[in-house]
């Protein structure tokens, strides 16, 4: 009630202020819900680190484009040996780190060796697992030798966890990141904001804005107020979809709705009874009405998926038909599995709203076919401990935001504990396959296998909804990786 009142008053006030636009300027303030814990993208999983720094401050050998394609980054070009085992990168000339030192082949050797070292704390260490050696041929050429051919090596090198860092600045990287990007790190008021300034000596096309501020606003109501008061110019991944209508009606703002790499799934503990029975898993999948969840929990934002793959990927196969909403069939499958009277299980929910709101709807849908769930709300740290590492759960909801992560189904110890030798062989073969046509076929096959095995119930692809000032152009609509690339952002006059 209180919220309803304040919202309608906000809406009323909005009418009064619409049109009070301010002069366009040369800097941008970006609102974000989460603050980075520190500023080293190569030693933590927090998406907020990449959002602030990826491509803006730090660059890798290759980089993601707005459509998720892999483009040349600090490596201008490369050649791949016929056996697919060695990659020779030609580095861009004249690239300097923000502290003035040159970016050279030795920095590449340092960065990659650091990431794959024994005591490395890289959150995506698997990206570097196949590297056998890294050597500098001369100041501008690096040769990377792999132990097995790896079709996704260039893709892996574009990740935020694979950016280039320098040995001279590594000790302070967590509070003073020094990269090669179009912006250099300026200051950080912890708990409040991070400021970046344009790098005037950038090797590529310089950024069009002079300065960028990332402001951390965790409360959804405060996010609404900050946007309405024009304290921020863009709110990335806007946390309060319930008041998007107010922005839609206001000419000052534009809503960007794009795709992400976040497959949101109702994960099932495949080794725990009764989910060790494929019929039960199928029953759960049939019991779920994806559209009701997208409408009810996500305010209509999201694309239904039938497997663990992003729909905007050219290799995506629409398999939602394998588990189209059919409660009758779900009940029949339960009866076949000897559970005609249903059963009880746990549903453990991490903090994001897709899980908390989606969980309530899913619990109701499962109850309709006789499955009783006991919901518990967990913090992330508890979720990691109980669900992810402890396997102590029946059902959970989580969005897997890493790009191209279908390979997790080949890891039998991964939290949903899917153990299928054929699938594991398929992924191992895929890893060493370089032919694009064959890769595509294998990816499609992999999607089909997990869909038909009903490993998890696949819900929807998370949408990324951002609110942007209408005059601000060049913000990425889609999120192929967790990045807020500001290098080509500008103000229209």
């Amino acid at each position: 009630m209180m919220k309803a009142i304040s919202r309608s008053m906000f809406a009323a006030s909005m009418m009064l202020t619409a049109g009070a636009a301010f002069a366009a300027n040369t800097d941008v303030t970006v609102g974000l819900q989460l603050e980075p814990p520190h500023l080293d993208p190569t030693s933590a999983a927090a998406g907020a680190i990449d959002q602030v720094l990826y491509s803006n401050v730090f660059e890798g050998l290759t980089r993601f484009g707005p459509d998720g394609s892999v483009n040349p980054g600090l490596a201008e070009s490369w050649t791949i040996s016929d056996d697919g085992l060695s990659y020779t990168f030609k580095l861009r000339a004249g690239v300097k780190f923000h502290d003035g030192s040159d970016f050279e082949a030795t920095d590449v050797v340092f960065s990659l060796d650091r990431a794959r070292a024994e005591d490395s704390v890289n959150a995506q260490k698997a990206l570097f697992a196949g590297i056998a050696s890294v050597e500098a041929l001369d100041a501008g050429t690096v040769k990377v030798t792999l132990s097995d051919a790896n079709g996704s090596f260039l893709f892996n090198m574009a990740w935020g966890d694979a950016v280039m860092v320098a040995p001279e600045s590594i000790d302070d990287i967590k509070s003073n990141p020094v990269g090669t990007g179009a912006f250099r790190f300026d200051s950080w008021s912890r708990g409040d904001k991070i400021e970046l300034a344009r790098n005037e000596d950038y090797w590529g096309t310089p950024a069009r804005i002079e300065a960028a501020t990332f402001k951390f606003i965790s409360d959804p109501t405060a996010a609404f107020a900050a946007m309405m008061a024009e304290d921020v110019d863009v709110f990335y991944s806007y946390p309060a979809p319930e008041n998007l209508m107010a922005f839609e009606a206001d000419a000052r703002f534009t809503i960007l709705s794009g795709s992400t790499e976040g497959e949101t799934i109702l994960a099932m503990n495949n080794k725990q009874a009764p989910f060790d029975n494929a019929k039960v898993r199928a029953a759960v999948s049939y019991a779920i009405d994806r559209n009701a969840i997208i409408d009810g929990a996500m305010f209509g934002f999201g694309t239904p998926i039938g497997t663990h793959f992003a729909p905007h990927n050219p290799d995506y196969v629409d398999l939602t038909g394998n588990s189209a909403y059919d409660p009758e069939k779900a009940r029949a499958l339960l009866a076949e599995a000897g559970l005609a009277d249903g059963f009880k299980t746990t549903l453990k929910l991490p903090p994001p709203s897709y899980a908390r709101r989606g969980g309530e709807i899913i619990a109701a849908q499962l109850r309709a076919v006789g499955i009783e769930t006991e919901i518990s709300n967990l913090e992330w740290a508890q979720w990691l401990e109980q669900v992810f590492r402890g396997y102590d759960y029946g059902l959970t909801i989580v969005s897997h935001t890493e790009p191209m992560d279908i390979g997790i189904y080949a890891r039998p110890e991964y939290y949903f504990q899917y153990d299928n030798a054929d699938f594991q062989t398929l992924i191992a073969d895929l890893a060493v396959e370089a032919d694009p046509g064959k890769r595509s076929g294998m990816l499609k096959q992999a999607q089909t296998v997990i869909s038909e095995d009903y490993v998890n119930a696949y819900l929807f692809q998370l949408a990324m909804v951002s609110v942007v000032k209408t005059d601000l152009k060049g913000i990425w609509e889609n999120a192929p990786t967790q990045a807020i690339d500001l290098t080509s952002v500008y103000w229209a006059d």
Partner: protein
Amino acid sequence: MLIYALKRLRSLVLSLLVASVVIFAVIEVVPGDPAAFMLGINAQEDTIAALREELGLNLSVYQRYFNWVGGLLSGDFGISYTYRSPVAEIVTERLWVSLPLAAYALSLTVLLAFPAGILAASRRGSVTDLSVMGFTQLGVAIPNFWFAMLMVLAFAINLRWFSAGGFPGWDEGFWISMKSLTLPAIALALPQASILARVMRSSLLDTLGEDYVRTCRAKGLSKAQALWRHALRNALIPVLTIIGLQFSFLLAGAIIIENVFFLPGLGRLVFQSISQRDLIVVESVVMLLVFAVILVNFAVDIAYALVDPRLRRGR
């Protein structure tokens, strides 16, 4: 007197020791591994082990406790697990927001509560008294975050007098920073002022009924003179106690208001650290607050003894 002070000092040290054990033990049993949290769901087990090693989480519970307490004694609060910078530095940054905010809110509280309370007590039963009582009832009842949102709506979104939140930092200028703390301070002060005004009123009414006030009146002082010269000073004792409590509450308990105005204060730091399992920050901040409270109590104990000779003997 000296023996009394030493006794109080002994109990202060004992309280701190007990508090450190309790805080450490409570936080130790919180489930969740800081290293696993940092590295997310794609991390390999060996990477998590490497980070645990780096953070010193592999030491035994006793070693970690003594390292922590030993550090505290020498002024070293340790290194934050998530931010990876000294806890003392992080806490100091937050105190630069939280202390001024608490002081600002407390000043507003006193400025509002004293006149209102005194006025209401001196005109007991009048329309003034009734309206003070009515408004303070409302002030206690209204949730302050809701009131804060209304102010944002009115002054930030509509009138554009203030920004919706955030803190520019003291380097940007004193007045700019004070301005950004104004709405939060008002939101925090409103319920506290209401409570304090009611305490002020009832305390003053109590003293006004005392024999010595009647004596004052009998020797010819006017009602106002009796109130200002004699009753008020004595009525202040419970009021000061409340103010002391309110200050520690405002320092650590402003978290909801900090969220509404996205201020980088101490409350938000603790909240964030708990969810990120940055346990060393939580332990140190809680310990610091306990220390502050115990120290204030110690000072109050000593002050009581100075005022009241009976306390110096006995106990």
